[in-house]
């Protein structure tokens, strides 16, 4: 028995060594693990109003009579809906639920993000950082949630990382063929990123700023890689500037009809959020230990950058690149360039770079604090950072958009601070089981806060009883399923009180006592 165990352990070790010997294999393993885990979890989260727009584009059956009224005020880049359409059509025929099938597109981008993050981390700071960085990204409830829904934020994050990886290779690879191929890849990924979200354009000036900074401050890339020459950097930036818009035009038929009007609408700045909004939300949304690691990573990189700029040490170019890519999305959100979405979604694509920096800093911390025992210390630090976050994922899933950290005081503390409780009514899904069990036959339900397409998607997937009808107002309804976001008006709910002559809910969905959904019923409509 002991021999058998020993043999098995030895085999696992050999397999681990084989797997960990090549960046490609590690990237593939992370991508596969990400895909499997997220594909399994993708059916459970609710549908926010933003996601409902994507699902409506992907699935014609979700377009109701008021489909035109449900469309958004400005044109939305097409990638999220196109990838959802591409996965929905074949997978739903295989018996996979419609919502899950449409979300598999995001799951594919999640796998791409893991792989790109591994490759970038490996090239920047070696194998251990490559193993740790994706874990530091995915161990955040809101990041995981973004990987489970069909909104374009995770796709943008994946393409953002992939573009930066290709840019770095195109700028620094010794072989001309690799540089050419990487420049083309950078252009293609950048175009896809533009097709995911219009604010992706800021990546081009960010990378141009990096190139200018590297040249002006004479920052060098780390030893072993070729120094980026201005010509190489220029060629990759030109490739991005040319290929990016071409890919966007090719993917977005709206631009064929009225290119200027559509582009003007899509790229118009959004309302500017209050000063410090993104920092405040990030402070309270990322689990405390991960937040500490991210902050330490950013500070570490900033110190290295300043020191390198003064002393002209090696490696500062990469620090500048990663810091710029992490800071850019926050600046875009503060300036109103990024769309005004819930939680950390507007600047989600900064997070993989913060995870990269955190991985490097934790490993450096272990190496410097206790050189003789750096490996066990690094493993311990990783566990200390990741374990509370994994517990938080277990606690908040599938309402990951309602996750707030220990500094906020969890969901109760966040509710006291007036932070939003959910993203666009997505918690309504949590009330479906009780509604199915207790609503009287043929009841008409008023759904304030939930997108009509989301309700149709629930019914289409069998998560909502088919005999239940949708009511347009509380006056016509027998039941009302009211989602509470904690920030907006509750007028439809109060009108329901008036129509139903009661302020007493028949049921509710609570997260740590904070109400996310309240169900009201007329007498006799609730069994």
């Amino acid at each position, binding site marked *: 028995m002991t021999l058998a165990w020993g043999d098995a352990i030895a085999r696992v070790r050999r397999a681990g060594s084989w797997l960990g010997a090549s960046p490609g294999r590690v990237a593939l393993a992370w991508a596969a693990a990400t895909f499997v885990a997220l594909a399994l979890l993708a059916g459970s989260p609710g549908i926010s109003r933003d996601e409902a727009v994507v699902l409506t584009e992907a699935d014609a059956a979700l377009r109701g009579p008021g489909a035109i009224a449900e469309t958004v005020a400005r044109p939305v880049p097409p990638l999220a809906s196109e990838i959802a359409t591409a996965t929905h059509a074949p997978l739903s025929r295989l018996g996979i639920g419609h919502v899950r099938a449409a979300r598999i597109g995001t799951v594919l981008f999640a796998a791409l993000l893991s792989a790109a993050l591994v490759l970038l981390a490996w090239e920047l700071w070696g194998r251990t950082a490559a193993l740790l960085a994706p874990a530091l990204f995915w161990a955040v409830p809101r990041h995981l949630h973004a990987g489970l829904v069909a909104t374009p934020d995770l796709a943008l994050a994946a393409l953002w990382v992939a573009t930066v990886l290709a840019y770095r290779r195109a700028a620094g690879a010794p072989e001309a063929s690799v540089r050419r191929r990487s420049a083309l890849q950078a252009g293609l990924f950048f175009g896809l990123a533009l097709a995911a979200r219009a604010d992706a354009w800021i990546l081009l000036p960010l990378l141009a700023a990096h190139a200018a900074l590297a040249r002006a401050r004479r920052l060098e890339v780390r030893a072993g890689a070729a120094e980026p020459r201005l010509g190489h950097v220029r060629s990759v930036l030109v490739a991005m500037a040319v290929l990016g818009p071409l890919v966007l035009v090719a993917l977005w038929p709206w631009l064929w009809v009225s290119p200027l009007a559509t582009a003007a609408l899509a790229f118009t700045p959004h309302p500017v959020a209050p000063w410090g909004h993104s920092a405040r939300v990030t402070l309270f949304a990322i689990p405390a*230990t991960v937040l500490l690691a991210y902050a*330490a990573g950013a500070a570490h990189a900033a110190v290295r950058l300043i020191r390198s700029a003064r002393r002209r040490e090696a490696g500062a170019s990469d620090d500048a690149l990663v810091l710029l890519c992490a800071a850019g999305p926050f600046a875009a959100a503060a300036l109103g360039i990024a769309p005004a979405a819930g939680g950390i979604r507007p600047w989600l694509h900064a997070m993989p770079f913060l995870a990269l920096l955190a991985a490097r800093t934790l490993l450096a911390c272990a190496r410097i604090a206790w050189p003789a025992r750096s490996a066990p210390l690094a493993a311990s630090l990783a566990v200390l950072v990741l374990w509370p976050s994994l*517990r938080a994922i277990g606690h908040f899933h599938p309402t990951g958009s309602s996750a707030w950290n220990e500094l906020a005081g969890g969901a109760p503390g966040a*509710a*006291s601070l007036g932070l939003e409780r959910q993203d666009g009514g997505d918690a309504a899904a949590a009330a479906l089981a009780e509604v199915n069990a207790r609503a009287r036959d043929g009841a008409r339900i008023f759904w304030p806060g939930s997108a009509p397409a989301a309700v149709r998607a629930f019914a289409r997937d069998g998560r909502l009883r088919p005999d239940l009808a949708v009511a347009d107002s509380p006056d016509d309804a027998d039941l009302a399923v009211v989602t509470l976001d904690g920030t907006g008006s509750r007028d439809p709910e*109060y009108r329901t009180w*008036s129509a139903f002559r009661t302020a007493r809910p028949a049921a509710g969905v609570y997260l740590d006592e904070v109400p996310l959904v309240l169900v009201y019923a007329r007498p006799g409509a609730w069994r």
Partner: protein
Amino acid sequence: MSELRVLRDRAVAAARERLAGALRDSVRSTRAAVTWAWVHRPPLARAVAVLLAAAVAVASAASILFQARLPARLPTPLDWAAAHALLDRDARPGDAVAVTPPWAERAREILPASVAVLAQRHYAGEDLVGVRRVWVLSLAEAPRFTWEVELELLERASRSETPLRIGSLEVTRYDVAFPTLPAAFLPDRLGRAAVSIGDVRCFHSAETRFLCGGGAVEVERSVRDVGGVPRPCVTVTAPAGLGAAIVIEFPAGRIGRTLYGHAGPAGTERGGPVHVAVVLDGEEIGSAEVPVEAWIPFRVDMTRVAGAVKPISLVITSPGPLGVCLDAMVLP
């Protein structure tokens, strides 16, 4: 005597010397320790790394502790059931429950339906119409809990009892010093009112709803969100404007000294300002011009007709499009 003094002085001098010596020794040893620590100090990078590792360990332990303790800081189903039983037994007509923090709205689902549940962030300046006693139900151990609600209610309480602990819930009863007890809350009488615009009677389309001018103007008893608080009121919505004065004639009741009311925007609808006149037997008793912003109070003096039992009419005019939530009560 002098010998004693000499002995005492010697003892004091010896003690002082010994104390000074001890102090010198401790200063010397401290200095040596500090010097040793300074000489053997770790490099800055290592010190920072050690501090970071320690910070990660502390943050991790604190996070797990927070997560593990959170359920115990929040009420259990048993706590809620006990609060229900308490209020079911002790609550009287005119009682209300104020939950704090205001998001603790499970109280609406659990507590007896006979007790109104208030879930507001602030109570300063609130009339609390018809409320004589307030039971404050606190989740005092919830993260980021504050005593703001208690302090605001304490300012207007004539008496309060010591808090009663029910698991994680804390229940305190306050008697309101000057309760607002109206003789009539007019929105509740809309169902028996007659509504007209110009001289044309409006269609009584539902129990508490009237449609005027072919649906261009709607008058309804409703509850609307005004400034984040549910306000029971009469809503008058006229997206294209009223055109003529709208008259709401409420059934006869005893006239008090004051008509007291508020006006605010009905949900997202805006408009105004609104002019409200009080009419008895075709004679205008008084009027008020109220901007439709926030929840603005107005008051009309009716002392000269107080005590009479008559139908009371509100005549509402507004220059432009209107969406107003209007409450009015007759105070004795």
